[in-house]
């Protein structure tokens, strides 16, 4: 699971939440618990969370993960190749990639106040809107 590349094609058919984070990023401390909760809620409905770590030194990331454990998959991108590809402007940044492999939503930063909005985008991508009624 600790590979440095993600094959999104291989994940086609799933909804992917691709999150870019780093150990020193303060809002990431709040996004991790949220992603854990989302993972437990939607993992069996086809959601795959991939958190791309952008620390140069993965030891920093591991220290972070000891304090803020992740129930989802962590990928290491120390050279920021993925980050460049996705044009990250803010940490953290996340993308919701639909079952067809197309990005459906992009969130810059993480605000607790907007959690419902992030979750709604995931629910929409999973096609579960009817469950929210």
């Amino acid at each position: 699971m600790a590979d440095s590349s993600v094959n999104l094609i291989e994940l086609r058919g799933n909804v992917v939440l691709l999150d870019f984070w780093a150990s020193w990023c303060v809002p990431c401390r709040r996004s991790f618990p949220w992603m854990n909760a989302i993972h437990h809620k939607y993992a069996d409905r086809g959601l795959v969370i991939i958190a791309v770590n952008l620390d140069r030194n993965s030891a920093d990331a591991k220290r972070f993960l000891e304090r803020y454990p992740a129930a989802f998959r962590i990928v290491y991108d120390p050279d920021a190749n993925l980050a460049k590809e996705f044009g990250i402007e803010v940490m953290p940044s996340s993308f919701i990639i639909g079952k067809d492999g197309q990005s459906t939503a992009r969130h810059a930063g993480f605000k607790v106040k907007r959690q419902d909005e992030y979750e709604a985008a995931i629910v929409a991508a999973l096609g579960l809107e009817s469950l929210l009624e």
Partner: protein
Amino acid sequence: MAVVAIEMARTRKNEQFISVALATATCTLLGSGLPTPVDAQEEPSWNINTAAFYYGEDGGRVQDFSIKAIAERMFVDDRVLTLGLAIDALTGATPSGAIRLDVPQTLTQPSGNATKTVPAGEYPLDDTFRDIRVALTVNWQQPFGDTNLFNVGASLSKEYDYLHVGLNAKVARNFNKRNTTLSAGIAIARDQIDPEGGIPTPFSSMLDVGDLSNRLGTDSKDILDVVVGVSQVVSRNLVVQANYSYSYSDGYLNDPYRILSIGDSVSGDTIPRTPPPGVEGPSHEYIFESRPVERTKHSFYTQAKYYMNGKVLDASYRYMTDDWNIDSHTVNLRYRWPLGASKFLEPHLRLYSQNEAEFYRLSLVDGAALPAHASTDYRLGNFDAITLGAKYGWKTRSDNDMSIRVEWYQQSGSVPANLIIGNQAGRNNYPDLNALIVQFSYRFSR
């Protein structure tokens, strides 16, 4: 319980304790049998910075014992409430403004109800200075939009003869992947001055004990500050900042306790006087200072922080100029040197230089027309200052920060030659100042 039993089972090699330990462990296991949803750790919500601090000038001058605390309550999404409290206990003597003489001098105390005699050759100090100051601040930070930050705050401080009330607001906006931040802020304040015995009329004479005919009661000043600034991330290791600030004060800007000696136009010595029989009063002619009622200051401030493999250089420079014709230059250098993973040493050097205000005088001349304004305040004089010291900081076992700072502050000034008359030339006219600063800080979260 389980742990104790395990230890006993081990050390005593008595296996009976295994079933005790097991029973306890089972209890724990089944006690919360049913699953609960994942709940991740909460961030600590308060960051509290505290400091106890001593500032002491030698020669029996000002001593300040102070405690200060800043508490930040962190809310989600970068909203922060900041509360500040400072308590200062001030004692000691400050220069009254009168020059030294070769004879003893008797001065009426600022309260107007007693006198004090200064021995020949000594600096006339005002030693009635004693005060407790309590200051409170409150600030709220709120982001709006993805790139803007808004701050609003208020301040209140009270000492025996002084009340300050202020409001401030600041906006900041990020650009360029948050590498550039522009900010603008405004602060307004009203300060009320209410000295014991009342405010003396500017340029009125120091009167005999019990004569308060030159006192005006209270007065106030209004202050407007505006700051605009830009901070810029230059590289992974370097961030710089530049600020311009404008400050306008309007109202009572005098020091109500400060006087000037009236000197002989040839000898420069203060003109003697004799109080009426049976009355205590000043032995020489002194008048209270008079400053302009407005002051406009402009400051330009730049700061750079540079990270070099664990060490951090913090350098700043400030240029200030005002319409009292004071120019000043301030350089601050701090170098943070890590000692292992959890300690650091940070030497600090500060250099300061200012020239005198246009109305700065050593004394006034008997018989000459009064200037528009005059003050002998050494803080409006021509001087250089140096601060040298270091801070040593470490992390406690519970991951809190502690530090001790020890610094020396020294002012050395000179009075411009054209302000010195006759015998004044042979005396040291500028009250040099040497102070020790000791600060202990503790920073924790909860």
